[in-house]
């Protein structure tokens, strides 16, 4: 594929607001996870919650869209000078020439959960204040971002569970290649809700401790919340030596099971191969792999197999979910931003909460953060439904 410049990016999650705070936390291998105190959840699990959301005021002209996920998006858009950079991009390209491709898994479902609690005892009707279009519908998040940034280009929401905000990079790259738009905002948000907390609990996939990716005692995920956004543009002339580039996107399906990954990681391997192929790179060109690494028994075992088959055991890799928790639909953009930070700052992020590496897993898993030359990073996002996506991100042309 034609490489694209990632000219601006923003992130917020339980490690902090903005790339500076997230980078510091990764360097120090700090985790943002804490025992679950979300809403009325009575579950023995840890989460990466962002308390600031509960006080946040949605921009006045978009009050109809007020819900936790759109607040999350707004908080993300306000980090790292992203909204200002988008105003400048809008001047440059025109509002109709910038696409908005946003990912989310749960959108504003929390709002619907709360509305169900306040049903009329007689008629069972939802309260009149319930705004389906602006909160529950999966597109509400894309609609909110499009309006927040004043953009009028092509837009939709991708909702493919935990690969959503990785896959939007592919949608944007195709739309730009086809000339439907000249630039695109990608990213998205996911927030804590009772559906995912109780749902993953029912599947026995949540850990009672902070999640420990690749640990011999790993026993499940910790849910988190967060948002991230990136501006993708076509390179204008020669690419600067420090430019952040999207080099490749690879997508695949498992064709195996709705909630369990293919045991040999066949779909995962195919996504990584396709991302490398799109970037015209070989496995040896990758300096660091940011793994999906959810800390379930099956994900980490399958992903390890796929990585070792393709890369051997010499490419440093780690999951950062012990630090951020699993951000579900927002995992892709969060880990894309972490991959950019790793490449920009020569950082190989260690794995918070992982005490030792499972001897059954054969990849070169990083327990501790260390500095190293990092030019090309591959990042994995895999979701329910066997939806896989890998991105290759690099520095310079």
């Amino acid at each position, binding site marked *: 594929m034609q490489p694209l410049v990632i000219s601006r990016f923003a992130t917020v999650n339980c490690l902090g607001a903005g790339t500076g705070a997230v980078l510091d936390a990764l360097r120090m291998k700090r985790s943002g996870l804490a025992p679950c105190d979300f809403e009325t959840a009575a579950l023995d699990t840890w989460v990466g919650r962002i308390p600031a959301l509960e006080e946040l005021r949605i921009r006045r002209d978009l009050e109809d869209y007020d819900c936790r996920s759109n607040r999350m998006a707004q908080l993300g858009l306000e980090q790292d000078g992203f909204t200002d950079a988008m105003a400048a991009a809008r001047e440059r390209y025109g509002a109709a020439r910038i696409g908005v491709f946003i990912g989310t898994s749960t959108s504003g479902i929390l709002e619907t959960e709360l509305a169900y609690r306040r049903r009329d005892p007689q008629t069972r009707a939802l309260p009149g204040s319930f705004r389906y279009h602006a909160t529950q519908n999966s597109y509400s998040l894309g609609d909110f971002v499009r309006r927040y940034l004043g953009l009028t*280009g092509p837009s939709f929401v991708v909702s493919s569970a935990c690969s959503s905000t990785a*896959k939007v990079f592919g949608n944007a790259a195709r739309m730009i290649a086809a000339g439907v738009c000249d630039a695109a905002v990608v990213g998205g948000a996911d927030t804590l809700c009772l559906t995912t907390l109780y749902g993953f609990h029912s599947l026995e996939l949540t850990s009672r401790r902070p999640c420990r990716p690749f640990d011999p005692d790993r026993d499940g995920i910790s849910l988190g919340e967060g948002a991230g956004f990136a501006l993708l543009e076509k390179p204008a002339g020669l690419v600067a030596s420090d430019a952040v580039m999207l080099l490749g996107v690879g997508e695949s399906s498992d064709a195996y099971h709705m909630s369990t990954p293919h045991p040999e990681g066949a779909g995962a391997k195919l996504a990584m191969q396709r991302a490398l192929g799109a970037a015209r790179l070989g496995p040896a060109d990758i300096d660091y792999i940011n793994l999906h690494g959810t800390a379930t028994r099956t994900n980490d075992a399958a992903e390890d197999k796929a990585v070792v088959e393709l890369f051997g055991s010499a490419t440093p890799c780690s999951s950062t979910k012990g630090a951020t928790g699993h951000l579900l639909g927002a995992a892709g953009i969060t880990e894309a931003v972490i991959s950019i930070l790793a490449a920009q700052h020569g950082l190989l992020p260690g794995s918070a909460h992982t005490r030792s590496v499972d001897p059954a897993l054969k990849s070169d898993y990083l327990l501790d953060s260390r500095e190293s030359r990092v030019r090309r990073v591959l990042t994995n996002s895999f*979701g*329910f439904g066997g939806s896989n996506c890998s991105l290759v991100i690099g520095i310079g042309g």
Partner: protein
Amino acid sequence: MRAYVEGVGLLGPGLRGWHESRAVLAGAEPYRVAPTAIPPSELLPPAERRRAGIPVKLALAVGWEAFMSAGRDAAATAAVFTSSSGDGEILHQICDTLTTPERGVSPTRFMNSVHNAAAGYWSIATQSREPSTSLCCYDASFAAGLLECATQVAVDARPVALIAYDQPYPQPLHAARPISGEFGVAFVMAPEATRRSFAAIDLEFMPYDKAETPLSDHALEAVRVSNPAARSLPVLVALARDGAEEVVLQYVAGAHLHVRIASCR
């Protein structure tokens, strides 16, 4: 952007398959409203067949009809799924369960609650490891899917399937988001004219509002506006008439898609 239509699948109120519905859509036979008849999916293994909800069955049925008439291998073809609501029955069940003291969410329901459930079951049913995407764009979900599908065909220069579907919500959600009559539609599209292709679709994103193309049959028009996936009907009618027509599909606020459909037989 241009794509060639090789196969179509269709299920909706009174519309039992694309081939059975062509004469009705072309206006040669009268349209009669009837509940959507969704066949059980023969494609899925027994365990998955038990777990799959209505939207999954709908998506699989129309997708399979489109591939059968296109004569393409589904396992070798990328697919774009699009739906405004996904599985509204599951959303209701889960939200209802979360109001009970036990909050005993069913693991199967939770697993099937993801918006890409149809894409996941499709991949299992067809053994396809090719990429899929699962889109939502509220009332313009079909338009968004058509745009993404045509873009993939143009950029990746290979055939791509589009599968759009929507199911009504049960109460109390139905009052907040009224959708009627299950509706599913699928296209298999190719970058070049082939022995199988029968129409060319030219698609353009237009960044301003324009009145969308209505249907002249009042009963069909009522179907079109009552289900996001049925917003595809003007395209289906143009395909059924086998001539050359232009259709305006409403897209996101302040934008529309200009679609030219021309027979290429």
